[in-house]
């Protein structure tokens, strides 16, 4: 069902844990849907110098979190904001159709962390980051669960 890359990131996730000196923290998903991703970023001079994640969810939720942290680490926040779920899927060599929403969550989790960083800087994140599509488990939920 999963590619080797997915399994490798699942068994040996990169950047797993918390970041005590994070200056941006984003969380998306909810327990009802069965996945929650929390991203911690440390931004210095506009660059994400460190990133960690914690995820409750299936194999692909953990793998997409792991690879997404790799893909933004050392990059500017502007670059991080261009990270798309498609790029995450490609980097993992593909995901089963019903698991694509995990890559959406990973993209949104990065954006949520950046948005939190801006908020802490006293900057309104919405014009820069856009709306964070987070799943609240009800009808208005933007994730794949309710589509």
């Amino acid at each position: 069902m999963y590619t080797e890359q997915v399994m490798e990131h699942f068994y040996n996730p990169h950047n797993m844990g918390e970041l005590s000196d994070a200056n941006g923290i984003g969380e998306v998903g909810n327990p009802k849907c069965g996945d929650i991703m929390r991203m911690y970023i440390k931004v210095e001079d506009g660059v994400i110098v460190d990133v960690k994640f914690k995820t409750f969810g299936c194999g692909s939720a953990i793998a997409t979190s792991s690879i997404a942290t790799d893909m933004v680490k050392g990059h500017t926040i502007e670059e991080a904001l261009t990270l798309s779920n498609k790029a995450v899927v490609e980097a993992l060599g593909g995901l089963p159709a019903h698991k694509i929403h995990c890559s959406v969550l990973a993209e949104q989790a990065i954006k949520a962390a950046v948005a939190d960083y801006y908020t802490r800087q006293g900057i309104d994140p919405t014009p820069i980051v856009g709306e964070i599509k987070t799943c609240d488990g009800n009808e208005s939920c933007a994730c794949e669960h309710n589509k």
Partner: protein
Amino acid sequence: MKRFVYADNSATTKISKTVLDSMMPYLTDEFGNASSLYSMGNKARAAVDAAREQIANAIGASAREIYFTSGGSEADNWAIKGTAKAMLKKGKKHIITSKFEHHAVLHTLSALERDGFEVTYVDVNENGIVNPCDVEKAIREDTGLVTIMYANNEIGTIQPVKEIGAVCRKHGIPFHTDAVQAVGNVPIDVDEQNIDMLSMSAHKFHGPKGVGALYLRRGTVVHTLINGGAQEFGRRAGTENTAGVVGMGVAIEEAVKTMESRNENNRKMRDYIIENALKIERSRVNGDMEHRLSGNVNMCFEGIEGESLLLMLDYNGIQASSGSACTSGSLDPSHVLLSIGLPHEIAHGSLRLSFGDGNTMEDAEYIMSVLPDIIARLRAMSPLWDSIKENEKNVH
């Protein structure tokens, strides 16, 4: 040391050597069509008849009441759709079932609902048992069928089939039971247990895949589902799957003969796992412990998600499931666990282990040697676990 453990016998079982040997002649030299007149056909016919007898004996039926199908799903579809068509002629359009049936039953019923039938889904209690009184209360003037499973495929709970059957008999309503998980594991007597229709599947009791049977009590009016030739007493068309039914016959005979020792062996492994896994904080067993299949373990571990648990177990050589293999393509938590009242977030973290022939206590011990660490590892990654622990602190 890493060990290979197959602990998903509710999904399917390994075909036994004697079963395979019994099938081989019909896959090779004795390939005749059981409906042909010449001698090779007659041999196949005799083999099919013998298998029918073996299956009838296993459930206290007569051979004439056993109809071979392609498996459990077809048997369920036939019993339900066939009865629905027949009852419609009498102006009846109401069917009673439970909330936690297998999808072969639930999805068949929702298809009938789209055709105008009405279905009552009776609740199951928090232990995963249907109350026969609830079935009786649901009966209406126009009720034409009750279908309640014998043993649940996820949590292994055994239903009061005899009592439900008695309610149906009292009201003159045919009673079907999906006994796919029960056959070979619990003693079944269709007369004593008031069963009119019963579905079974060979690969659940060490027989081959692709073959099952429907027991139809003599006189039960059920329309044909698969139309065509006159096989199966003119009620189910299709060339006899000779090798399959021969294997099924041998498998059911073996399963019934070894039932007691298997149950004893299974129960030891099951109870060992449950007793020890319950020591893991925030864990729970799902389903009644008394009325339960001997080989079924179903537990939830808070703060983790079932699929990641299964992948980690697989990495350690353990083949298990989080519920039904039939629902693994779905993102929703188990409808069975929701039906016994578990919240979504807890139902997501379920694990089903199902033991059968070939499992030993060494398997159970090996599972317990890796399970706590896997759960700890996944919880260390889980923000949900963090919030559970945070809430605990706030309460104290």
